[in-house]
């Protein structure tokens, strides 16, 4: 058939026999593209660059008392970890944190559940959150001292405050955002009240709930370090905040840096290993978040 010889009048119906097979219309990505797609790798490059900048500035300044190099900090970190002193403080911090975080999250979920089931519950949550969310946790330290004295309970008290409102706000927003259709499908299947919340509303709101948990985690971690500097001495092992403050008092600046680095590393590990893993196996897998 010569297409150029065809004229408009000669066009006929054309029917092709398309065999019923799946055509693979994909191209595999090049090595570079694939490497660039790995989040961890890109972030790793950023971290290495920052570490190099730190090392070179420290060496140029040459004043370990004021600004130790990356190497000196790592050394202090290693010593702290191998002697078990820093490890002990990290574990102490995490233990306190878990108590406060769990209590805060539980309260937040109860509040959000009350808010979805009744109007007055919603009013309660909205009012409380707008009142207390802007209140910095540090502002509650004096009150915590009066009520609970120096000790773990004071720290848990301020931790709950820092976690509760952020998580409640996000959870409630997530619950409210669940589509009417999904709620109706749930009720159609005979669910109501708590079973509807547990089986439909909570999973449907999971992206917001998770982001609330992440924000709550970050708030709790930073509040904890600050609180330990105030209450740390009385709360058994002291925790990371106390370790940093003590190192400063004994002018061991590399240990101060090592303590701060430990704060950052623990924060990153929880974010990357815990929250990312949860997101990947839930909301991303379900196409609810990309």
């Amino acid at each position, binding site marked *: 058939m010569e297409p150029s010889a065809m004229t408009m009048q000669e066009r006929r119906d054309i029917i092709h026999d398309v065999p019923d097979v799946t055509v693979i219309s994909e191209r595999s990505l090049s090595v570079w593209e694939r490497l660039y797609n790995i989040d961890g790798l890109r972030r790793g490059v950023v971290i290495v660059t920052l570490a190099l900048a730190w090392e070179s500035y420290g060496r140029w300044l040459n004043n370990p008392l004021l600004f130790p190099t990356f190497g000196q900090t790592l050394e202090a970190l290693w010593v702290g970890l191998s002697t078990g002193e820093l490890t002990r403080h990290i574990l102490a911090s995490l233990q306190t944190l878990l108590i406060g975080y769990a209590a805060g999250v539980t309260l937040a979920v109860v509040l959000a559940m009350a808010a979805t089931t009744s109007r007055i519950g919603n009013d309660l949550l909205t009012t409380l959150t707008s009142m207390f969310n802007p209140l910095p946790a540090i502002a509650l330290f004096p009150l915590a001292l009066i009520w609970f004295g120096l000790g773990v309970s004071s720290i848990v008290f301020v931790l709950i405050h820092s976690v509760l409102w952020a998580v409640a706000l996000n959870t409630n927003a997530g619950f409210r955002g669940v589509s009417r259709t999904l709620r109706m499908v749930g009720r*159609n*299947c005979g669910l109501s009240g708590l079973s509807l919340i547990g089986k439909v509303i909570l999973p449907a709101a999971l992206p917001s709930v998770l982001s609330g948990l992440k924000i709550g985690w970050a708030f709790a971690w930073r509040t904890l370090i600050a609180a330990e500097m105030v209450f740390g001495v009385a709360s058994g092992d002291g925790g990371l905040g106390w370790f940093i403050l003590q190192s400063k008092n004994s002018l061991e600046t590399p240990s101060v840096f090592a303590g701060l680095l430990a704060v950052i590393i623990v924060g990153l590990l929880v974010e990357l290993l815990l929250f990312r893993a949860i997101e990947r196996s839930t909301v991303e*897998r379900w196409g609810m978040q990309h």
Partner: protein
Amino acid sequence: MTSANPTTAALLEVKGVTLQYKTDRSQVTATFRVSFAVFAGDRYVLLGPSGCGKSTLLKAIGGYLQPSEGSVELAGREIIRPGPDRMMVFQEFDQLFPWLTVTQNVAFALTNGVGMSREHAIKKARDFVDRVGLSKFADTFPHALSGGMKARVAIARGMSVEPAILLMDEPFAALDALTRAQMQDDLLLCRQTATTIIFVTHSIAEAIKLGNRILLLSPHPGRVKAELGSDGRDDIDPADGLKKSERIHRLLFSEDRKPESD
């Protein structure tokens, strides 16, 4: 055909139902004293232009809304809440739970709705997923499905529970024309299962094709204009020389031209 014996009692009776709902600013009357009866095996179509309250009426049958006047009775019992004896298929694509696979979505209705054991429910769900031609996607999450496939899963979910009535709220409205035609044919094919269906649509052609009984509703507020039988064909009625679709069109839209007598 499984058309019911007229002497037997109706499966669903809608008796003088007035439905009202409140918006922020006002109270809207969606339907006014609507009455009709659906018999077992019916494919009953609620047809009317937007604003005739047909979807609201379906929600009332679903139990999501209480009539401010009149009552809705299923097998003699008044409907007061949603339940799996009236499974509903919605128009929206987001009616599947995104965290459950296709099979799990169907099984969810079976375990929660009729208290079936998990393994039993999964087995039955697979069977119904096969029936709507989605065997290949049985373990896929809904976000990877097309709109037509999602509608199929919703229909499979509705049918698997074997409800007294399957309520369908314009389930094909959001689909492209080709998929819609295919789905209509598929629905006619499941006629053998004799599921009683109430089907809401604003398409006259769809109503004639799918229904054996068509209720015409006039808008603002919805009132019953006529109730017609249908054999699935758009034939000319020798009485007035009109095609059924033309007759329905006149019935639905004539009042725009004629002044109201009452």
